[in-house]
């Protein structure tokens, strides 16, 4: 079997599809010049990682086939973009970053198998990857066994804190608590209807949401319901919503169900711009809106940490670079941005530690800051999650969100929230 190493530098800026043809686009000139200041390999790599005098190899592990490919491709694009930008800026410890990309194929054992391959055979210095909780759970034992480091981009349910993972997305409380406060305080919401796809993330999220709602005076949950993944008929639950008349529908429906749900809500006469009821989702990013259609979700609110429309210089640069690399019609969702942070945070940690060694990097994570994040300033908490803001955006008919609220402070990540379990 052949090793498929690829190097992306400033040269590889075609659509991501080019990557699959394994174009070797190494920018040797850049690598050579950057090399001058690089510390010797034996000092920065004592554990046999794939680090040479001018290169360091990392792994990208996402599904690019199967049902999850829809969601994960944005993350792959963002990670490759970050890597190529890092290379343009001189690489990491004077070494150009190369990557080996593996396909998890939407299949959890495949993820574990490929993670093992990346760590055992390719000796990658970091893995950027996994998207669903199930794929993360599958690779986790492997990463821990071989002492790798995974940079995981998706907002997720929490309840986990591994020394071998950096969680660049939000855990559940960071997405939920502030948005519920906002709905109660700004919108005067009293009653909530919780609705989700039937698996761990919506169930855990709704558990936290329910607890938080019931802790606030006068607020209550009037319904909580789950539909199997891929379910496409929501008329009955729409009737129940009409019957219960909640102030807020708190939705965590995912995948194809999402499309069906919003189309059928719209058809049943719900105009979300009237905010009666108000729909607050934690699962619809700009990516999903492309499939649902902007006209079907106009007026809904989403609670995320990042929206493509964020108005700050970092984000302007990021959006421009992303579109230049992958085309003008690209949209960038919350997870895509979080995936973009992975390589940068790894670079910062390596440089702070002065070494690629996983054990040395791990010591340095707490407190690492990244000022150039498209979402603004982020910082790594000692529990390996990120401090970040919660933002509420309202969907516009063009498929973008308009930010209507953001927390003053960075929210502290709390993967094991006391009292919510």
């Amino acid at each position, binding site marked *: 079997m052949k090793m498929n190493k690829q190097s992306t530098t400033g040269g590889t800026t075609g659509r991501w599809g080019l990557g699959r043809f394994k174009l070797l686009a190494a920018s040797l000139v850049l690598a050579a010049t950057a090399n001058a200041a690089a510390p010797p390999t034996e000092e920065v790599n004592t554990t046999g990682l794939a680090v040479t005098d001018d290169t360091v190899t990392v792994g990208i592990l996402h599904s690019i086939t199967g049902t999850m490919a829809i969601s994960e491709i944005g993350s792959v694009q963002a990670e490759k973009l970050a890597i190529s930008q890092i290379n343009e800026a001189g690489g990491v410890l004077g070494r150009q970053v190369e990557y080996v990309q593996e396909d998890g194929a939407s299949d959890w054992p495949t993820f574990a*198998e490929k993670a093992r391959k990346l760590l055992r055979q390719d000796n990658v210095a970091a893995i950027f990857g996994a998207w669903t*909780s199930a794929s993360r759970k599958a690779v986790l*034992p492997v990463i821990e066994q071989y002492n790798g480091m995974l940079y995981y981009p998706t907002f997720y349910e929490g309840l986990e804190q591994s020394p071998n993972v950096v969680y660049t997305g939000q855990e559940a409380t960071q997405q939920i608590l502030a948005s519920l406060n906002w709905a109660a305080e700004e919108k005067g919401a009293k009653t909530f209807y919780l609705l989700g796809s039937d698996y*761990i993330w919506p169930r855990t999220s709704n558990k936290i949401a329910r607890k938080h709602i019931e802790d606030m005076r006068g607020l209550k949950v009037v319904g909580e319901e789950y539909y199997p993944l891929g379910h496409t008929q929501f008329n009955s639950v729409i009737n129940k919503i009409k019957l219960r008349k909640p102030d807020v529908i708190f939705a965590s429906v995912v995948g194809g169900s999402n499309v069906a749900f919003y189309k059928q809500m719209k058809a049943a006469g719900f105009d979300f711009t009237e905010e009666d009821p108000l729909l607050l989702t934690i699962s619809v990013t700009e990516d999903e809106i492309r499939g649902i259609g902007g006209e079907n979700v106009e007026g809904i609110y989403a609670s995320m940490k990042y929206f493509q429309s964020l108005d700050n210089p970092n984000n302007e640069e990021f959006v421009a670079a992303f579109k230049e690399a992958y085309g003008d019609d690209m949209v960038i969702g919350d997870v895509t941005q979080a995936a973009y942070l992975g390589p940068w945070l790894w670079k910062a940690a390596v440089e702070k530690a002065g070494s690629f060694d996983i054990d040395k990097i791990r010591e340095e994570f707490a407190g690492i800051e990244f000022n150039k994040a498209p979402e603004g300033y982020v910082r790594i908490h000692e529990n390996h999650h990120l401090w970040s803001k919660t933002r509420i955006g309202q969907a516009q008919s063009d498929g973008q969100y308009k930010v209507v609220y953001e927390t003053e402070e960075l929210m502290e990540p709390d993967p094991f929230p006391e009292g919510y379990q």
Partner: protein
Amino acid sequence: MNNSALSKWFVSREGVYYLLLALLLVVILPLVLDPFRLNMVGKYLTYAFVALGLVMCWGKAGILSLGQGVFFGLGGYCMAMFLKLEASSPENTAIQSTPGIPDFMDWNQLTELPWFWEPFHSFSFTLLAVIGVPVLLAFIIGFAMFTRRVGGVYFAIITQAIAAILTILIIGQQGFTGGINGITDLQTLNGWDIRTDEARTTLYFICVGMLFLCLFVARLVQNRKLGRILMAMNAQENRVRFSGYDVAAFKIFVFCLAAAFAGVGGAMFTLLVGFMSPSFIGIVASIEMVIFCALGGRLSILGAVYGALIVNAAKSGFSESFPELWPFAMGALFIGVVLAFPDGLAGLYRSYVMPLEDRLFRRDKDKGAPVAGTAASKPAAANENDDEPVIDNYSPEKS
């Protein structure tokens, strides 16, 4: 089989095929592959158990089940439950609000172990359940369907629906089952760390051993009158029935046998891979297992092993280099096998390679010919004709 018959069998053509497979799995692959790749081969072999069951159930008896993943999954979950309980000792889970129960139960506010988890503290019970639970379910389904003469396409669709039901249930009841994430982070088996290379290699050999055990059981069934009845039932169900056989009982038996094989495969999968998740129970996984069997040759016991090895090795190879092409290749495989090679690789081998062998080794053509009545003590006379020839020169690592 007495000793001389046994030694005779080993030098027979069929015996050589079994020896070659053993040579490949026990000697060649472990020498050629690193522990990581060997573990992957082990994982493919666990699918061979399912394919073997399908050879008996679908190939021989004509019962196509699109729900074999259910039995594979049940066997795997039984093993995973035992391992998870071992991994969730009170010391390991001290930070939980209820120490001593699996982590996902704790997250779902369960405060004590559900009753149906309790017996899985016992290893012997687990071993029993790995076969017993799939067989019990197969018996219930088989009894309900076959005594009412549900068969063919109807049976296929109902088994598919059962796979769908079980998947939704397992995903929805996450407090009891681990939900969509499955049961993960399995560490030790009776104190033995199953994650190390040495353990994985040992488990690989155990898996090969179990596979051969199942192969011999399948071969026994095939070569006895039982096997002939199954084949006969497939062709002329009414004639068998009116020759005095309880057709439903035979169908139930072979369906349970296939379920038992699948259950063993599932348990080995859990041990080799280190977790179990509902994605192996679903419709897609279940149908893929049928293609392993069809590619090897739906009538060929050894073909099932090669089918599983080749399809999975090709899948890994393809998806490493051309991920987009894999579904095309897989689709073409389904269509091609069905349209052009209904007997799979075993059929191709029989038509193209065996004549060559005959010429090369000048085999005694009359050997398999029937023996007259005087040779009453020779059960082999007619049996040898039934023995399925199989491919032996395909290496899964050619990709």
